[in-house]
């Protein structure tokens, strides 16, 4: 290690202002000291609209815990876009994301990704992970919300015969259901897993009704005794949260502990936006007139500023940026706040008048 360090120093002397990695990058695209990258090793078709993309990450990647997500950067027409995706591969395996073609970035990933492509990466994050101690579990997922749970199932089921997992997955139809056959096979092979598919548009199909307990009681009578994990669209999660709150508030001390939720989008307060303003990115020497419903993060990215970002929904705080002057409005609550020097979350704050950011 010491020798490598010394060699690096010598190489730096000869290459400045470049770093040795810049030159190595000529032959190895994963060598970059500024940005973590991964090379696509396999692309699998899951459904007509979704693909699982396996990749081998470069140095600096941390192995993920089942259920975590990572930011993935994709280049679309020359411009870098970042989105967060749950990792669907089990713990210990090379990472993979399962993407459904909804939105510009996901569609690009699904339609264009091929073997050998380079993805830009950030390390895995998130606390939507398996409990530390064995407990009976209930997984409640809808649509692409299955991906983090799939990682948990793949991690837990083959290794822990004593596990007890019920997975209720809601999808529109059988052909649109992610990992349908694999789940059935796993359930077949391991008694630890019970899978209940719920199809909303097949036969007498209707949506899984979480506004009251009937559906849940039918599919999983002992749901009250299980630690629950839910992931899916916002209204699905809101209903689940409300149900757990009303049904289990008396029994569990903390309903939030009985039900873990993973969201894909921030919960914005309708009408929270107000007047926008001119946003100035001081170090980047850029300014952009920004409407009151546009986040500082989006404004910066549009102006070509390299903004730090993470979950893009106000949770992970990777986007914190010092405010130099001005006030910002939290799009989740409508609250106007901001003091000089305060670190603001750019992903869920919009300008409330002229704003200067130290980036």
């Amino acid at each position: 290690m010491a020798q490598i360090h010394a060699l690096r120093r010598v190489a730096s002397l000869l290459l400045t202002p470049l770093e040795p990695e810049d030159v190595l990058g000529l032959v190895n695209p994963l060598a970059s000291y500024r940005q973590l990258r991964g090379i696509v090793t396999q692309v699998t078709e899951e459904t007509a609209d979704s693909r699982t993309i396996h990749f081998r990450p470069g140095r600096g990647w941390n192995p993920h815990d089942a259920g975590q997500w990572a930011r993935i950067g994709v280049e679309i027409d020359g411009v870098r876009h970042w989105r967060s995706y749950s990792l669907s591969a089990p713990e210990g395996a090379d990472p993979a994301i399962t993407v459904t073609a909804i939105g510009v970035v996901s569609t690009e990933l699904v339609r264009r990704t091929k073997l050998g492509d380079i993805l830009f990466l950030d390390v895995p994050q998130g606390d939507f992970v398996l409990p530390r101690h064995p407990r009976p579990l209930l997984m409640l997922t809808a649509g692409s919300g299955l991906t983090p749970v799939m990682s948990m199932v793949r991690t837990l089921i083959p290794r822990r015969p004593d596990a007890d997992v019920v997975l209720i997955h809601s999808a529109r139809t059988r052909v649109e259901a992610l990992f349908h056959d694999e789940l059935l096979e796993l359930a077949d092979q391991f008694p630890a897993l019970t899978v209940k598919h719920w199809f909303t548009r097949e036969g007498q199909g209707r949506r899984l009704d979480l506004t009251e307990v009937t559906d849940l009681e039918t599919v999983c009578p002992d749901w009250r005794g299980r630690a629950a994990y839910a992931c899916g669209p916002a209204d699905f999660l809101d209903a689940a949260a409300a149900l757990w709150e009303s049904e289990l508030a008396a029994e569990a001390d903390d309903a939030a502990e009985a039900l873990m939720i993973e969201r894909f989008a921030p919960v914005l307060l309708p009408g929270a936006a107000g007047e926008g303003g001119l946003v100035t990115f001081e170090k980047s020497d850029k300014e952009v007139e920004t409407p009151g419903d546009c986040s500082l993060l989006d404004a910066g990215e549009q102006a070509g500023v390299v903004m730090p970002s993470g979950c893009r929904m106000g949770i992970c705080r990777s986007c914190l940026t010092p405010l130099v002057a001005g006030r910002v409005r939290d799009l989740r609550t409508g609250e106007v706040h901001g003091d000089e020097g305060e670190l603001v979350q750019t992903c869920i704050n919009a300008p409330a008048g002229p704003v200067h950011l130290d980036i």
Partner: protein
Amino acid sequence: MTTTAPPPQRTEARPRTPVLASTGHPAVRPPTAAHLSDEQVAQLGRELDAIRDRVLASRGAKDARYIRRVIKVQRSLELAGRVTLLFSRRKSALIAGTAMISIAKILENMEIGHNVLHGQWDWMRDPDIHSTTWEWDFVSPAQTWKHTHNDLHHTWTNVVGRDKDVGYDLLRMDEEQPWTPFALGNPLYNLVLMPFFEWGIALYDLELEAWRTGEKSSDELKRDLRLTAKKALHQFTKDYAATPLAAQLVSRSGRNALIGTFTANCIRNAWAHAVIFCGHFPDGVDTFTEEMIEGETRGDWYIRQMIGSGNISGSPLMHLMTGNLSHQIEHHCFPDLPSNRYAEVAPHVREICERYGLPYTTGPLPRQVFQAWAKVCRLAVPPQGLGPWLREELHARFGSGSPTRLPKRAVNAAPPTVRRGAAPLVAHVL
């Protein structure tokens, strides 16, 4: 213990660039554009904005591939050149290595560094090719250069007294700059500046003049000095210590490697110097007074950039090696458009110039370089000519009995104007 000063209190948005008037006209419109009405100037501004918008809307994967390819070629050349120099005992290796490093350095400074630092590629959002992270193979640190170049030069283009690039506080490059005996050295300074251009720019970027007049604080100067010293040390070590030492160890060719890196730096410096002097100093390129920018509108700003810059005509290879500064006019109108797109907007800009009766200065490199040098030499001489000045000087110093005689032709010319406050009193007769 160090104490950090609290950040300056700011509560209002500050403009990043001087605010341009939305209507009207400057206090004085430059003579070259004096024939244009306010409405014509506004229309010209809109037409150039439209050109810019067209390119912005069509930037994409092709442009991204272009800059990445140039970077790849440049890095490969740099690496191959340096490795070749390790074996430069052989003359062929010395020549090949020096040539490769020279080209790599020119590409790095001109087409890559200069343009990346302008933010031309920021739209890609790639932190590896971004104006805020890029450091270039040049003594002047990116940060200080961006200030004097992007903020000062590009904002105040050719406004005598504001744009210090008019002569770099060293050369007398405009008639409006007062002549002093120091200017006699113009050609000599320029000759020395040429092979050591990067050191000249590094010194210039420290803005010692601004510090002396109090425009730049001592803290800022200290910070810039620290940055520059560190950068200069790295650059110097790489080319003049580490590479020769490595070559000495590998094949005992340290001396030749040193000759190679020194020559490569000189070649790059001379080239950059030539290209940059073609940008604003050849014949036909205007300079401006402060009244001409007072109340300047967007259209007037464009006009100043166009008539204050000069292009170099040539092949695509010439454009690449000049970092597309051969399209200086287009670069000054649109400093943050990707450089590979200047060639396609150039005919449109030229057509606009022709239609509005504005000059569009361009010419082959040798001619433009010659004109710039001619100006350097011409302006070394005092306005009244060298002979009269010498006589005045001798008279003032040694007080010979006969008073200065005006040249014959001045007798019937307009009455001599007298420069106030200057001793000895000199009649302007040119």
